[in-house]
């Protein structure tokens, strides 16, 4: 038995897991319907795929949610995991699930997949026969991903950085890298059985004034770490910034660099897709404005030529959306995609060059770290602030970079911290930010966070 298989045996055996049958799972994946694989749809569909977010504690509620989504014309189903499971606290998740089942009140903000198990969950996935995307935010997702793949969920979101820096306070970063290496290996292994398993990075990060350069660097790194382990289908992603042109520039640079680095590192055969997240920051408390925000965001997703869009709902500011609100957003986004025609191809060569230069500067600095493997170089780079994300709750994050918006809504770097970007680039960035006289930077930032309110 390989070391990896030995590790798998250990991971999948604990008091919350009921007998993991690897042979049966392999058989299942080998004979699974192609429709369950998003990688298959990416290949053959010529429209932007629409995927909502959503998850409820109980099986029945998720089932009803999926029925509602299907009626609304969904392309990709989501399975969002609750926060306790994300933190591997299966005991609490189990307790809350029991309470939710008893009282018909949701005591969890997502689906506790471990507690439900793959045998139960797979019934639902094969019943609906749609590609499903696992959304979690878990630094140690080894068991979760085993469970997901065994259930017929063939897209796995996340990554060692994107599911750690925004989602955790003190989970050790080096552990996260190793745990995700396991996930990548697993996805690579299962990709050899049937259509490839798709891995997707989580570009929105903390969804709060994230500068594109950081988003892109992190997307590229997680892509490379994944392709290194043999993954063949990967989605880079980012979320609406608040400026249409910045989104376009980000998409153009991100896709260009993703292809370039993939080829350079010898993974030219992998498929790379672009995912756009509708506005991930604070939503307005007015549902009609939220509808408008969702549509405007759909138009921008079309401008950036995303392969998949992940939707929000008119309930975002209030709480976990009802299934009706969620399905409504899907139907509305599909309507907009269907009726929106004649999209121009937009470029901004100067801004793209500027952004590309900054991305290269940081990537170079990472590659130049003296460690032996890519993940260790990245680990060191985060530790010493060469990479950091604004508004991360994590203790390892440098918290020195400060960003704010220019008058066009573009997110610019106000303090660069230890980001290794050139003085020229930094001066350009900083000079774009205009702070009104008599106003403080903090006031400006609060306004810039609440740009959609």
């Amino acid at each position, binding site marked *: 038995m390989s070391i990896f298989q030995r590790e798998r045996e250990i991971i999948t055996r604990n008091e919350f897991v009921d007998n993991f049958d690897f042979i049966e799972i392999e058989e299942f994946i080998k004979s699974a319907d192609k429709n369950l694989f998003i990688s298959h749809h990416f290949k053959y569909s010529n429209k932007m795929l629409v995927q909502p977010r959503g998850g409820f504690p109980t099986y029945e509620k998720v089932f009803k949610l999926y029925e509602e989504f299907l009626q609304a014309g969904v392309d990709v189903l989501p399975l969002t995991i609750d*926060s306790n499971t994300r933190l591997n606290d299966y005991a609490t998740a189990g307790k809350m699930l029991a309470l939710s089942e008893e009282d018909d009140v949701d005591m969890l903000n997502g689906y506790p997949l471990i507690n439900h198990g793959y045998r139960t969950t797979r019934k639902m996935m094969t019943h609906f026969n749609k590609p499903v995307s696992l959304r979690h935010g878990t630094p140690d997702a080894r068991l979760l991903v085993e469970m997901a793949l065994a259930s017929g969920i063939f897209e796995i979101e996340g990554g060692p950085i994107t599911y750690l820096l925004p989602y955790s306070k003190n989970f050790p970063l080096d552990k996260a890298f190793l745990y995700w290496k396991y996930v990548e290996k697993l996805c690579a292994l299962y990709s050899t059985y049937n259509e490839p398993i798709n891995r997707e990075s989580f570009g929105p990060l*903390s969804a709060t004034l994230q500068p594109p350069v950081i988003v892109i660097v992190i997307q590229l790194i997680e892509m490379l770490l994944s392709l290194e382990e043999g993954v063949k289908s990967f989605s880079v992603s980012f979320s609406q910034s608040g400026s249409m042109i910045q989104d376009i520039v980000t998409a153009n640079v991100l896709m260009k660099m993703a292809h370039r680095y993939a080829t350079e590192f010898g993974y030219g055969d992998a498929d790379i897709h672009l995912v756009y997240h509708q506005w991930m920051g604070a939503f307005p408390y007015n549902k009609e404005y939220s509808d408008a925000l969702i549509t405007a965001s759909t138009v921008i997703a079309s401008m950036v030529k995303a392969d998949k869009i992940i939707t929000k709902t008119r309930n975002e500011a209030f709480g976990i959306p009802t299934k009706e609100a969620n399905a409504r957003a899907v139907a509305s986004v599909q309507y907009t995609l269907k009726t929106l025609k004649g999209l121009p191809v937009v470029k901004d060569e100067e801004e793209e060059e500027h952004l590309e230069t900054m991305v290269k500067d940081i990537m170079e600095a990472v590659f130049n770290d003296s460690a032996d493997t890519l993940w260790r170089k990245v680990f060191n780079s985060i530790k010493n602030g060469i990479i950091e994300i604004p508004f991360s*709750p994590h203790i390892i994050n440098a918290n020195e970079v400060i960003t704010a918006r220019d008058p066009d809504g573009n997110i610019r770097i106000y303090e660069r911290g230890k980001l290794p970007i050139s003085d020229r680039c930094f001066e350009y960035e900083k000079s774009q930010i205009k702070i009104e006289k008599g106003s403080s930077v903090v006031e400006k930032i609060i306004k810039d966070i609440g740009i959609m309110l």
Partner: protein
Amino acid sequence: MRVVTGVVGNDVHVVANRLIEISLKERGFDVYNLGVNTYLEEFLDALIETDAELLLISSLNGEAEGWCRNLKALKSKYNFRSNPLFVIGGNLGVGEMDPDALIPKFKAYGFDLVYHQKDLNESLDEVEEVLKQRIEV
């Protein structure tokens, strides 16, 4: 005046927490910010350690109830010198909740003031008002 603040439970929403720290400092408080992912026990320990007059808990991810239902029992085990004001705010329920049902529920758990989806600054004005009255009494 001292205040202990932070985000309760398995909740990593840090943005409000950062802004609350700034607001409280601007209002002249001595702020002890425990950050996100803080358990109830840690908050109460910090009250004991700091003798703070105010505990200001945030919860955003909808799981407040699960994390706070034992507050009363827990409180009884501590011996507060400062008789602190217990305040919770943010987004206190999963999904859309009837605020009229939520507020009595959290008061029954042992909070003095409860703010569900309320404006931060208006709420802090109110909190300060109540603190002032307490001291005057």
